[in-house]
């Protein structure tokens, strides 16, 4: 699956329309601030919220608002969205990966950085989509000592972070320096998996001149890109269950987010485009693409080269955690880092057989849970026992299912159990 990595990311224009959902992040959804028929330009705010945990959304194109309605959303439901008919001039990108002029860190103060990040609507681009400005907000009770830059791909198959490091190293490093400054941390560490020596090399060059930044190579091992694992691998600190990295003085930031921060602070660019990996055997032309946020998945797939006849399953994300989608008329969000299209041959599973207590699921669980025990408890409808076995700590990484020789859908049981626990209150 490395074919996608070898080539430069390709820029794609939006299709005839784009759909900008009011909720692309964790937190309060935005309210539309444009009206039907109104002309909008690239980077214009189309939705805002007063809430603290939220992020504004912008138009990725020049065009006209066609309608404001509930549109299909990648999360499977319908969400209020601004639908824009793409007009003349369309989506403009010039030298998207570069910083325009010489970057001078001293020019920017904390308030300025936070404001720019907030105004640009930046959210975590690794997938969680947590508003970044909230992360930067200083909390005297929980001082930040270290900023970790996550250069570990969050899933196998996905290469967008790797590609971005190769193409926009300077922007990423500038973004990290800004985050370190904004949070008042003493250092920034860039964690890169050891199977990406080219990225390590480029990044090493990019951090020259910053004495508080460093590169750490970490083992290539899914889910290394998950926050908990990364914090543990790079700082040896353990994020408490149910807590945040901030609880141990760490802020984690994805490479894409860092680059977006640099562009927002230096050029005032809103987060209206992102790099997306298209991968899987069901695609004619997999690769990395830079696309406007709000572009329809169907357009993206078609413009990239289309699906082949074997395409059977479309995942929003990578093959380990990506949820499936049955429809393609949904937009790319700020947090969409990849699309995987699988063929039947790739995912066909054998029938589950009895658990042989081989303990592979126990050994592989990154959170040290006992998946087989939890699954058995759920199967026996013993929710109390599932709770005792820390079912709620599970991060849905899917490693246990991947490894189970008996093909037991452990995670499906665990998810069912989690829903039951939540219902119990």
């Amino acid at each position, binding site marked *: 699956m490395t074919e996608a990595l070898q080539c430069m990311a390709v820029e794609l224009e939006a299709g005839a329309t784009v759909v900008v959902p009011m909720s692309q992040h964790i937190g309060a959804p935005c309210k539309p601030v444009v009206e039907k028929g109104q002309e909008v330009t690239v980077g214009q705010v189309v939705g805002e919220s007063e809430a603290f945990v939220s992020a504004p959304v912008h138009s990725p194109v020049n065009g006209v608002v066609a309608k404001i309605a509930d549109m299909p959303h990648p999360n499977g439901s319908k969400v209020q969205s601004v639908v824009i008919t793409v007009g003349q001039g369309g989506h403009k990108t010039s030298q998207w990966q570069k910083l325009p002029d010489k970057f001078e860190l001293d020019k920017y103060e904390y308030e300025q950085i936070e404001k720019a990040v907030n105004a640009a609507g930046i959210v975590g681009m690794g997938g969680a989509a947590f508003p970044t400005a909230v992360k930067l907000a200083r909390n005297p009770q929980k001082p930040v000592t270290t900023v970790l830059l996550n250069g570990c791909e969050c899933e196998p198959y996905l290469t967008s972070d790797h590609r971005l490091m190769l193409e926009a190293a300077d922007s990423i490093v500038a973004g990290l320096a800004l985050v370190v400054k904004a949070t008042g941390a003493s250092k920034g560490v860039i964690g890169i998996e050891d199977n990406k020596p080219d990225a390590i090399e480029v990044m090493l060059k990019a951090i020259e001149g910053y004495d508080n930044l460093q590169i750490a190579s970490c083992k290539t091992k899914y889910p290394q890109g998950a926050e908990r694992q990364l914090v543990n691998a790079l700082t040896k600190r353990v994020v408490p269950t149910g807590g945040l990295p901030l609880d141990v003085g760490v802020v984690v930031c994805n490479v894409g987010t860092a680059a977006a921060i640099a562009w927002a602070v230096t050029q005032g660019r809103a987060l209206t485009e992102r790099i997306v990996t298209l991968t899987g055997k069901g695609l004619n032309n997999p690769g990395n693409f830079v696309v406007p946020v709000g572009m329809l998945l169907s357009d993206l797939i078609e413009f990239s080269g289309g699906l082949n006849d074997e395409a059977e399953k479309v995942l929003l994300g990578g093959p380990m955690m990506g949820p*499936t989608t049955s429809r393609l008329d949904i937009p790319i969000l700020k947090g969409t880092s990849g699309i995987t299209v699988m063929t039947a041959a790739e995912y066909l599973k054998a029938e589950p*057989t009895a658990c042989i207590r081989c303990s592979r699921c126990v050994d592989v669980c990154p959170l040290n849970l006992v998946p087989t025990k939890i699954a058995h408890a759920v199967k026996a409808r013993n929710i109390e026992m599932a*709770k005792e076995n820390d079912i709620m700590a599970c991060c849905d990484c899917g490693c246990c299912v991947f490894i189970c020789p008996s093909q037991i859908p452990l995670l499906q049981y665990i998810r069912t159990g989690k829903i039951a626990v939540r219902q119990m209150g």
Partner: protein
Amino acid sequence: MTEEVKEKMFVVSSSPHLVEPSSSKRVMYEVCIGMIPAIGVALYHFRERALIVLLSCIVSAIATEYIFNAVRKKAKTHFDGSALVTAIILGLSLPATLVWWKCVLGTFVAIGIAKMLFGGLGSNIFNPAMVGRAFLMAAFGSAMTTWVFTADQDKAERALWSQEQISQTVQLCAADGSEESAVEEVAVVSGATLPLTGATLLKEDDSLRKAYKKSKRAHDTAIAEARAVLHDAEESGIVGEELAVAQEVYRVAEHAAEDAYDATKKELKKERDSKSYKDTISTLMGSERGSAGETSAIAWLIGGLFLLVRRTITWRIPLGVLLSSGVIALIAWWVNPIANMNPIAHWGAGGLMMCAFFIATDPVTCPLSRKGRFIFGLGVGALIMIIRLFGALPEGVMYAVLIMNMLTPLLDRCTRPMPLGGHVKNA
């Protein structure tokens, strides 16, 4: 294309969408592959006898599983490999002389009762093969402890013996009532010629140890008695000449006891020394008497390493077993090399290697967590040595495994790993 795409129904399912191309079946068959060297050694040493034992076990294991599933109207699992693993382990831990129907009976108990009645693969508490063997031990004790020479040994020994001596031995054996059934057994299997039988290495070790203990006890009692006599004499208030005589008597008795003890020790030591090198080699290579498959430690080691490399098993249980048994054997040997066999021979003998890599590692009946598995291994190794050194039985693999199986649920509870970041705090 767009239209077509919109028409197309995509598959919706729960993540993850990738799985490792492995299956429980494959795990089981890999275990079987790991046992090939040991099977080869068994067939080489015991020829058609081993073949008959193995085949009876295998055929009856698969048949038993099939019948139980059919009767209880459950999915067919007889070819999932687990019955085969149990059958081979059981077959290789039986003496090659066991008649086929006893093998079948043992297999029936192993698969039918120890596994299927508990709910089939994954639900059994005890290692099925060990339950089957325990049953046979209880039911046919003497047949289960009759160990024939290997084919090579048999030939060599026979060459030394004249036909006359052989028939004498046969008569002698037959005359000895307690051995009768064993001899019959042997005669049935082998047809006209009586195979030569002998003690296993552990049995020999055991008798040497017992001989040592006996002579020590004799020495201790002799001295104690002499001392008591002397004490009585002193109490009675004798003086002078008479006292000197009593003391002299005591000294003589003491000397005699010491001498006898020393002589036995020397003899035992000679026997140990004459054997120790040869025994160590022969347990490793498999030219020693024993169960069909437990004779060659090297064969099991090769198979075990194969499983480790294939990651079919993890290293914790084998290491635990070898570590605790090795340490105990080493201490015993160091303290008293006359009474105790050297640790390498202990490792090589009595199926300890087979246990470390193939029996104790049965996933179903060992704990889930890494720590639990290591403790389990340590426990099995320690129990084996305790039974060998202090118990009435010369070997201990079977009971050690069964006892630790019983402790598995407890170990599971006590060694549950702590989630990264601590337990979920329940609101």
